[in-house]
């Protein structure tokens, strides 16, 4: 009895979360210009529109450029920060960690306004580097969390063993620490890319018309005219994000399995 209620409850919640998405996605394949059911005829015309209409094509390119840039920047910075906070000699490491994780909790609007004002002073407003930096700020916490977790799984004695066997600190890093942290770094990068991909609010503040990203383009086209192109774009985003999330989960799983086995 209790089990049945549990199952029912679970199914209801999942339905509640997924149904709106599932309800709208088939409309990406409609041939009509209206977002209405029933779908009379299926076609890929809205995907063609995505690929050919300048505004959409440009926004997809922008999303990729900015996403990759922000991923690269935040992965490098986040990894370095996680490595730094691992050191015992660093005072206030836990305070620093809190500061680094702040962008996760500060409202995006506040960050957006702040960055816009700041970027104007540096000539970064409405530039690619500006948007990339802004996104990276949001992505860094994800990288830090993920890399820290995988660093925590590394037995210090393994690094000590390497140095006693003749490896200089640099060699210890690239032969031992880095390979062992790599799954965490990659999954951090995946999270970073996904975060950048669907970020809208900060983009509204710091990006100019030339840096319009896919998410931003969807946002504005919803306000102008609701066409099935938006749904097609949404489908692309969802599939992309799902693939990335799957990749991250797979890496995490592998890492956990290794950690489990490595324990004596």
């Amino acid at each position: 009895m209790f089990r049945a209620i549990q199952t029912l409850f679970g199914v209801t919640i999942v339905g509640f979360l997924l149904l709106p998405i599932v309800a709208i996605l088939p409309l990406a394949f409609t041939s009509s210009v209206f977002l209405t059911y029933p779908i009379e005829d299926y076609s890929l015309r809205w995907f063609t529109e995505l690929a050919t209409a300048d505004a959409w094509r440009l926004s997809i390119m922008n999303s990729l450029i900015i996403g990759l840039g922000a991923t690269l920047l935040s992965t490098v910075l986040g990894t370095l920060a996680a490595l730094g906070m691992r050191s015992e000699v660093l005072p206030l490491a836990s305070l620093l960690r809190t500061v680094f994780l702040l962008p996760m909790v500060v409202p995006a609007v506040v960050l957006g306004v702040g960055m816009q004002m700041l970027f104007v002073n540096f000539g970064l407003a409405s530039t690619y580097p500006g948007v990339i930096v802004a996104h990276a700020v949001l992505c860094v916490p994800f990288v830090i969390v993920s890399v820290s977790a995988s660093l925590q799984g590394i037995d210090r004695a393994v690094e000590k063993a390497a140095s006693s066997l003749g490896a200089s600190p640099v060699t210890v890093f690239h032969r031992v620490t880095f390979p062992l942290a790599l799954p965490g770094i990659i999954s951090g990068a995946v999270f970073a890319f996904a975060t950048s991909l669907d970020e809208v609010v900060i983009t509204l503040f710091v990006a100019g018309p030339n840096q319009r990203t896919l998410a931003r383009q969807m946002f504005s086209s919803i306000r102008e005219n609701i066409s099935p192109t938006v749904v097609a774009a949404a489908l692309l985003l969802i599939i992309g994000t799902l693939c990335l999330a799957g990749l991250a989960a797979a890496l995490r799983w592998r890492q956990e399995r290794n950690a489990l086995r490595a324990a004596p």
Partner: protein
Amino acid sequence: MQPFIQFEAVSKSFGAHTVIDSLDLTIQQGEFLSLLGPSGSGKTTILMMLAGFERPTRGTITLEGTRIDQLPPHRREMGVVFQNYALFPHMTVAENVAFPLEMKKLPRAEIATKVERALDMVRLGQLKNRRPSQLSGGQQQRVALTRALVFEPRVILMDEPLGALDKQLREHMQLEIRELHKRLGLTIVFVTHDQSEALTMSDRIAVFNGGRIEQIDSPFVIYDTPRTRFVAQFIGETNLIEADVVNVQGGRATIALSDDLVAQVDAAPELAKGQKAWFSLRPERMRLGADPAGDNALTMTIADCIYHGDHMRVQLAQGQFTFTARCERLAGDWKVGAPVVVSFDPRDCTVLAP
């Protein structure tokens, strides 16, 4: 002869807490030295200072006359075996063993043959393409040992390397390590808190207590003539009794164990008449039986008799005074409450100044 490794007045503090206090220690080349002591006595700290993971707060450490205490670990050429093995989880067995050779920048072909030979020596040739996670504890232990030996380090340091193994495997690995030590002429510093391990494997044992060496000697001397109360109690089992020195004459002393029990012992030169002293006698050095052979024959009562499989443990009493004796299972039929004559050789007794 110049000592191989020498600690001179080495102290180590963590903040206000002094862990090692002005330690002097020399280690000879080819020696198997065990560091033995209770938990927290500073054994690991000494090993870590030798390996370079900790710097002495004061004092110097030299290796063949050259100061090494400020060198980073990777330039000390010491093979360290950690308690949990510390194998590289992302490398195969062969890659683990090849690692120190790669650090030495040896040619590939030479590395391959050395790895092959080393793994065959510990019978791991079959497993060379496995990951550490796919090995048993004993196999991991052997890989760790091989990895520490293969680059021909000047010293091998081991921190309780057998602690995680079960008893049988531990005894097997003890023999294996002893064998390697003899065959390759290795200098080994071995940390353990298992006294029987230290007794069976070492050339010398350094007994630590609170960051100081209580005694450093061969296993024989440590066991038979402990120089401090701590050593007498820590190594093996002993009857330790506070006694009065009644008389000292020509290398012999008469000791009053209690009001009416007196023993003859071989005396240390510094012993003086009228002094208090600690009397120590191993349970297995006592003989029970009617024959009053030797210089010491005390009549006591059997208070209890405990069966231990290969031996018996007999509790003896005389008023408030008690002794524990250990004897052969078939040595006699001891009845609780019966009187018995306890005899022992004066040479087997140790008397320590308080």
